[in-house]
């Protein structure tokens, strides 16, 4: 029934309820993922960021908060510039590929 109004869903993050299964899996395959200091150099150098909102910083944060990353990832061109600039040496390329692999496994 339409009452002419709706409630907007809460945008709050509840760390007790977030699904971290993908993050936990990535911690095994790309342990560097824990080392992110959210400096943003990956986003600043990203070729796709200006047009698509792609950002490895946000990708990692979203993974840590159990949020969806599919849409963002579809814009990555795997140029590797983020890997080059990361001061903590995170293998962002492997991270992105592993996330893609997780989603393609999921489909199967």
């Amino acid at each position, binding site marked *: 029934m339409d009452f002419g109004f709706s409630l907007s869903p809460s*945008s709050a*993050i509840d760390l007790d309820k977030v699904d971290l299964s993908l993050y936990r899996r990535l911690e095994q395959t790309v342990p560097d993922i*824990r*080392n992110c200091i*959210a400096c943003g150099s990956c986003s600043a150098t990203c070729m796709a960021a200006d047009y698509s909102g792609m950002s490895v910083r946000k990708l990692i*944060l979203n993974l840590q*908060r159990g949020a969806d990353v599919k849409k963002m990832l579809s814009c990555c061109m795997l140029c590797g510039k983020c890997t080059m600039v990361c001061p903590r040496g995170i293998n962002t390329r492997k991270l992105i590929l592993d996330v893609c692999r997780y989603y393609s496994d999921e489909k199967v």
Partner: protein
Amino acid sequence: MKESVVIIGGGIAGLEAASQLLALGLSPVIVEKSDHLGGHVAEWYRLFPDLSPAQELVSRLVSSASGARIYLETEISRINALKDGYSATLNNGDVLFCKAVLVCTGFHLFDAAKKEEYGYGIYDRVITNRDLEHWFGGLEDARIPDNPRAVGFVHCVGSRDVKAGNTQCSKVCCMTAIKQAIELKEKFPEAEVYCFYMDLRLFGKKYEDFYISAQRDYGIHFIRGRVSEVSEDIDGRLLVKAEDTLSGKPLKVRLDLLVLMAGMVCSPQTGRIASMVRADVDDDGFLRSRDNIYSIVESGRKGIFFAGACTGTKTVPETVAEARAAALSAFRYIKEKA
């Protein structure tokens, strides 16, 4: 007879200064208000960055200062300027004549109960960095659960807080939080550990390595956002709210223990001593050095010297180095006058 220097405060600064003054051939007298030497460090368990026992450092300092005259549980009642020095009257009636006075009155740990929103003294599972350190050192604490699932650390409690009257950064708490988070994770490997920070100020040697290790080897989570409020649920667990400023979203999490990183504030004794020796107090309540680059250990007054956290927040190695510098400055002052 050897020239005497009165040292106010028997913490690590006072002890190290005393041992250096002894080596320089002077006669230091330590006046300590509490019943023990070593000050705050004597109550600590392990020191960053080497995780060395604090007691080891204190014992070493106490033994090298043992040649000094030491008054415990004694306070200074009055200091008078004389023609070529000072006389200090103690509350036990003794009068000490000296050529120079070295103020080593240290700091005071911020009273975390003043930040009511964090619930210290209200909820059972909220403790401070000092409480946790005491527990590491073997003291019982009923507030610390046997098997916590989730633990949080709140950085900057009472520091960088204009409303609390403390604009200064306490310097040591970021590193202490990481040290204690790692120590806690070693005791409870299954627990999730969260650090709520505004900035991480890891300026010292090996500090950044600790940070990397906390993330990489211990999986400690760092959340950029100041905790805004803490409440208790029906099971006694804590519901902690903060903004996850990196995602721009409000965040909440249930914890079994919350550790507040109480900062350093000026000691209430410092103002009293400052007025006795007519030294200036800075806007932050700490003593004002002659300048903050070259003459940190010197006051604006002849024969009055400072060492350690009475002039501002300091780490242990900074305090010890300053105590040596102050001892040398006092020595040169006395020799040049003679």
